[in-house]
């Protein structure tokens, strides 16, 4: 995996950077062993609960907790699709998060390229403004945004409220500030000679960007894409206000498993697992890119 990572800076590769030529002292080794064991337990227990409970029959999760299931069943994995329209929520989430990611990455690449390569008035104001939006409490613009979307809908007929489009628009701006910031750092580390050579060869500025700079910045771009997808996939607040029955995403839809009388914990755990697998698998496959992208971009 590590061989496939392209990185302009050798230090950014995931090769172990030897800290000390001599062997670490025993005190450090023991501290490390204890700490890492404790952390592994802390991280794994909820994961174990999720996996094991999703395979338990209902009495096992309504009665007292038991570490081992009394019997294994795949029933919850069958039932989750009919208890709530999970498939529809799933498709909605995929469409929303996928589109938001693609748009966010394209917009962020363009903006970061401008900031990284050009001198222009307002450059600093732009970066500062974009970054400072990270500070806004979501609750402050939830209602205004809601009103804005409703009014745009009334005025122009473009349905933003309650539609997937409105949610895409909202989510892509959530990940935009951090993405732009990270990509500026990353593009700064891509040698300028590359795009200048492309310009000399007769590429336009956009040609230089997409044929030369973007391919050289793949780790940074992948990192940003992962971040954008996770942001959109996990958001709850805006999804709970801005969606209706047809456009509901997983984040809200999952609440449908607790009825007034019964909470189907085994189904909730099964559904949680099903909706987590795509993100976690993708994240773990791409995490090396994320580290490389962060190393070159954000933390420099």
């Amino acid at each position, binding site marked *: 995996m590590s061989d496939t990572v392209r990185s302009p800076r050798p230090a950014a590769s995931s090769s172990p950077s030897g800290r000390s030529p001599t062997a670490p002292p025993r005190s450090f080794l023991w501290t490390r062993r204890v700490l890492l064991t404790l952390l592994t337990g802390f991280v794994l227990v*909820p994961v174990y609960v999720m996996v094991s409970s999703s395979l338990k029959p209902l009495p096992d999760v309504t009665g007292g*907790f038991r570490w081992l299931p009394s019997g294994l069943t795949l029933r919850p994995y069958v039932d989750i699709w009919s208890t709530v329209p999970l498939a529809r929520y799933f498709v909605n989430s995929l469409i929303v998060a996928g589109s938001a990611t693609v748009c966010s990455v394209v917009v962020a690449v363009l903006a970061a390229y401008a900031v990284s390569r050009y001198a222009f008035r307002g450059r600093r104001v732009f*970066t500062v403004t974009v970054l400072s939006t990270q500070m806004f409490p979501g609750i*402050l613009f939830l209602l205004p945004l809601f009103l804005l979307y409703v009014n745009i809908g009334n005025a122009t007929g473009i349905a933003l409220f309650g539609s997937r489009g409105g949610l895409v628009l909202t989510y892509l701006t959530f990940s*935009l500030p951090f993405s732009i910031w990270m990509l500026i750092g990353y593009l700064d580390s891509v040698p300028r000679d590359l795009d200048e050579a492309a310009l000399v060869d007769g590429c336009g500025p956009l040609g230089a960007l997409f044929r030369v700079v973007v391919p050289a910045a793949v780790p940074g771009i992948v990192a940003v894409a992962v971040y954008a997808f996770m942001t959109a996939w996990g958001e*709850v607040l805006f999804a709970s206000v801005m969606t209706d029955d047809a456009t509901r995403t997983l984040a809200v839809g999952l609440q449908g498993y607790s009825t007034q009388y019964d909470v189907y*914990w085994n189904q909730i755990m099964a559904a*949680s697992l099903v909706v987590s697998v795509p993100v976690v698998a993708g994240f*773990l496959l791409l995490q090396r890119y994320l580290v490389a992208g962060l190393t070159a971009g954000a933390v420099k």
Partner: protein
Amino acid sequence: MSTGTPMTTTVPTGPGTGAPPAGAHTPGAARGPRRPGRIRRGALPYLLLLPALVLELLVHLVPMAIGVVMSFKQLTQLYIRDWGTAPWSGLGNYRMSVDFDAPVGQALLHSFLVTVVFTLLSVALCWLIGTAAAICMQDSFRGRGLLRALFLVPYALPVYAAVITWVFMFQHDNGLVNHVLHDQLHLTGRPTFWLIGDNSFVALLTVSVWKGWPFAFLIVMAGLQNIPGELYEAAALDGAGLWQQIRRITLPSLRPVNQVLVLVLFLWTFNDFNTPYVLFGRAAPEAADLISVHIYQASFVTWNFGAGSAMSVLLLLFLLVVTGGHLLLTSRGRRSADV
């Protein structure tokens, strides 16, 4: 409908006007001296920025301006369909929010204090655990890659999936936590209620740290890779032991990373809505009444959006002051370190 008109007055605000003054030393912008050789080329950079600018205006800056306007209005459910006609209330909403003798102000103050304590504890723990783990995993050992992937799982899990698992674990009758503490270890006289009452603070903190520390781990891990290996070699030749190397080289080198990391963690944790909302539902217990859920309730339960907006603006002002102060302090530290 006449509701379109108030929007059009706010749309033409330029990008510069929305910039809060405190952002002048934002970490991204303050990174090193500007390199020579940036091309000047008329309109092109603006065209490249245009999509980002339009989106930021539409989703962040204009709604924020509207939010500020709303905070001066008496915006109750009577006017929600046509909020332009709501009467102005001047500073009424603000006066109500900070009147700490009245129940509304008292509740807000309480929620604010809970949030401050919660955020400080959560950020400190996330940072501590993340840094310790990253330093432990700086040298390669067998299983390091696997462990690293494992540690990132809580961060990668969607918030609601992770938090709902914790809700299950914190259940009074059928949860794992009570099973272990009460049934197996007999530490408590009777099963504890984790999601209501005072213990909910502990539950919230646990979930927040579980979810948050991998991000610190990730960033510190990336920061560690930028420390040149020669530094350690030189120190080792000088006879510095491993603990000394960590104290004298690793931690000081991480300072710029930590400054940004702590600020970002602080802002995210302070504004976090998803975790408490999924953990407690709409009615958060008093001990874990975080400010964003509090404002959400103040707006949507009582349908008083003017008051909710005023509280949000106050929250934003507080965050601006904290961020400004932080950036001022850290940039001064950085400048003196350069001398």
